[in-house]
């Protein structure tokens, strides 16, 4: 008999439900759209005795992540969530959490960074954190959010990794849309996540340790090097854990999802929710005999370079669709893709696109037009913009 349960829910509520089942020791959070529902729902669980956690309603995102670091270093299992400017306010503390090897699991609900103020999705909040030393996983839908949260607890706390994780989902598109979701039983989740066994907890007063030391040029480099080792272990450890969870769920998420890309000539590389549209268009083109495919990048940190090079090898053209810009430089995903493909003996042409900033919709016709560019060999040195209003355009998307 299956002990699973099917429900209709949203990405935020899926994250919160996973939190309830995990029952972390401490959650410290601060409200910000579109992630607010996560701490709100969790506070409700705490208020009704559904979890044994301490919920700390802090006075800012900066204090939220600071309290999370304190609790995690103390030895507790810790989770939180935020978005956009909240994430930016926490920026100072992210590298500290990573350097403390504090295995915090963080629900990052992607939203554009102001100004101008905009509450809708793009990846301009999480991408500036890509060098903070945290793992970044981008989810396509609510089910994947749920499964990824469970995996992330184990991944972050694994002694070979000991690195905090951002579980990213697209604001509103994933966080607020309801879709069918399969939950594991509470017992299965509890068994899978187990209990945290902290290595050097601050609360062990018999064996005092100092965190956050003043470390000059004699040792700083080595501490950073050791963090890299933890990050290097992420993908192999993840593969073990994902296989273990697959036995319960029947679902497996590789670091890069390959959708009909094996024999494809032309591929689109994309992240998160917009990949659903791309997959539909791939199916349509396949019906017309065009060998189209898609690669959905799930892990952005660590970036699965080898996996990507293997998946993109021999393609006649690749389009990279970034949902954030690096103004004055190459967009984050495009930079990683170009770098990873550079090692291939046979050159794969890459075209950069920027789409969806501030929640601008991405349609099937957009994906069609991208594939059309690849097929016709239309490459430009600078990125193309998808759905951008040019001068005198009528705003049909407004």
């Amino acid at each position, binding site marked *: 008999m299956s002990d699973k349960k099917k429900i209709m829910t949203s990405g935020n509520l899926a994250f919160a439900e996973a939190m309830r089942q995990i029952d972390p020791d401490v959650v410290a959070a601060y409200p910000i759209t579109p992630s607010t529902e996560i701490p709100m729902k969790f506070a409700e669980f705490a208020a009704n005795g559904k979890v044994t956690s301490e919920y700390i309603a802090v006075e800012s995102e*900066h204090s939220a992540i600071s309290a999370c670091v304190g609790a995690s270093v103390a030895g507790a299992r810790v989770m939180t969530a935020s978005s956009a400017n909240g994430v930016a306010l926490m920026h100072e503390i992210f590298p500290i959490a990573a350097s403390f090897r504090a295995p915090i699991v963080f629900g990052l609900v992607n939203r554009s960074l102001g100004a101008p103020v905009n509450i809708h999705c793009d990846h301009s909040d999480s991408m500036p954190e890509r060098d903070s030393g945290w793992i970044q996983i981008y989810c396509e839908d609510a089910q994947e959010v749920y499964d990824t949260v469970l995996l992330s607890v184990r991944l972050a706390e694994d002694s070979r990794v000991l690195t905090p994780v951002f579980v990213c989902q697209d604001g509103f598109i994933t966080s607020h849309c309801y879709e069918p979701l399969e939950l594991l039983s509470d017992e299965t989740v509890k068994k899978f996540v187990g209990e945290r066994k902290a290595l050097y907890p601050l609360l062990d007063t018999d064996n005092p340790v*100092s965190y956050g030391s003043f470390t000059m040029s004699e040792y700083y480099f080595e501490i950073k090097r050791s963090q890299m080792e933890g990050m290097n272990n992420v993908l192999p450890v993840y593969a073990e854990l994902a296989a273990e969870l697959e036995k319960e769920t029947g679902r497996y998420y590789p670091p890069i999802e390959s959708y009909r890309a094996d024999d494809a000539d032309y591929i689109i590389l994309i992240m998160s929710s917009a990949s659903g549209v791309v997959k539909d268009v791939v199916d349509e083109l396949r019906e017309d005999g065009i060998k189209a495919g898609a690669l959905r990048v799930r892990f952005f940190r660590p970036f699965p370079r080898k996996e990507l090079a293997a998946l993109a090898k021999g393609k006649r053209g690749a389009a990279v669709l970034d949902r954030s810009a690096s103004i004055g430089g190459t967009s984050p995903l495009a930079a990683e893709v170009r770098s990873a493909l550079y090692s291939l003996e046979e050159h794969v042409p890459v075209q950069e696109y920027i789409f969806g900033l501030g929640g601008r919709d991405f349609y099937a016709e957009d994906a069609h037009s991208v594939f059309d560019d690849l097929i016709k060999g239309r490459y430009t040195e600078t990125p193309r913009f998808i759905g951008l209003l040019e001068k005198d355009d009528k705003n049909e998307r407004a």
Partner: protein
Amino acid sequence: MSALNIKEMIGKKRTLTQGHRMCPGCGAPTAIRQAFMGIDYPVVVVSATGCMEVSTTVYPYSAWNVPFMHIAFENAAAGISGVEAAYRVLRKKGKIDKEIKFVAFGGDGGTYDIGLQSLSGALERGHDFTYICYNNQGYMNTGAQRSSATPLGANATTSPAGSRSSGKLQRAKDLTEIAAAHNIPYVAQTSLHNPFDVMKKVKRAVETPGPAFVNILTPCPLFWKIDTSEQANICKLAVNSKFWPVYEVIDGKYYLSYEPKPPAAIEEFLRAQGRYSHLFKKGAERFDLVADAQRDADENWEKLLAKCMR
């Protein structure tokens, strides 16, 4: 609360060992030493960025005999909130079975200025911890810049005395009163020249359930421009001149710890320190600012006496 016993206190294991790199004559290690003499429990320390943090934890060494964490400048109170919450939940779950106390340290920069928001949040939320501000009245770790704790007339490197300015032109913020306005169970001001006052207040702070705040006047010989041997004397003068009243606020009730009879003039306190020497420069004296400082001290004192129902 048990009484203080000198013999026991002297025999206590040092929380902060020798070998740290604080300057000779610095008040901060004295403050820590005196504070810990008042604590009879296992302690976890969280510190803001500052002289004390950088000088006691030079990797791969640590002068701390107790668990110690420093995250950043502005968040000692937020960090200790997390540690204390973790303790509560892990104790509830039976994973920890002893009573542990939580003490945060911050200089005035990390407390009056950049850390004020996180301190206010932690006090309001009611975490069971003690926040100790070692207040040397400016940013000493970066070289004697002014903070909102820097007093009127002091020559600091970002409020320098020059031909058109006479040092800091504003009064110091009254953080102890701000802490008291959170209606927390215990708030105190104390001074290093009286170790028993420090110990007694820290003891009460730590043993009182809920948040407590202790503000300790802590001289910096480099900024205050005093001889390293003058630490206790200048503190005593600060208290005797009403520049730094020592008092407690217990459950909202004010108690004066000491009343100088008769009080010394503020001018005596100012003249004893090089940071005010420009006020007394021959031909360019600023006795008007000295008078302002006296007026401020008198005003603060009268307000305090009124709160103490005196």
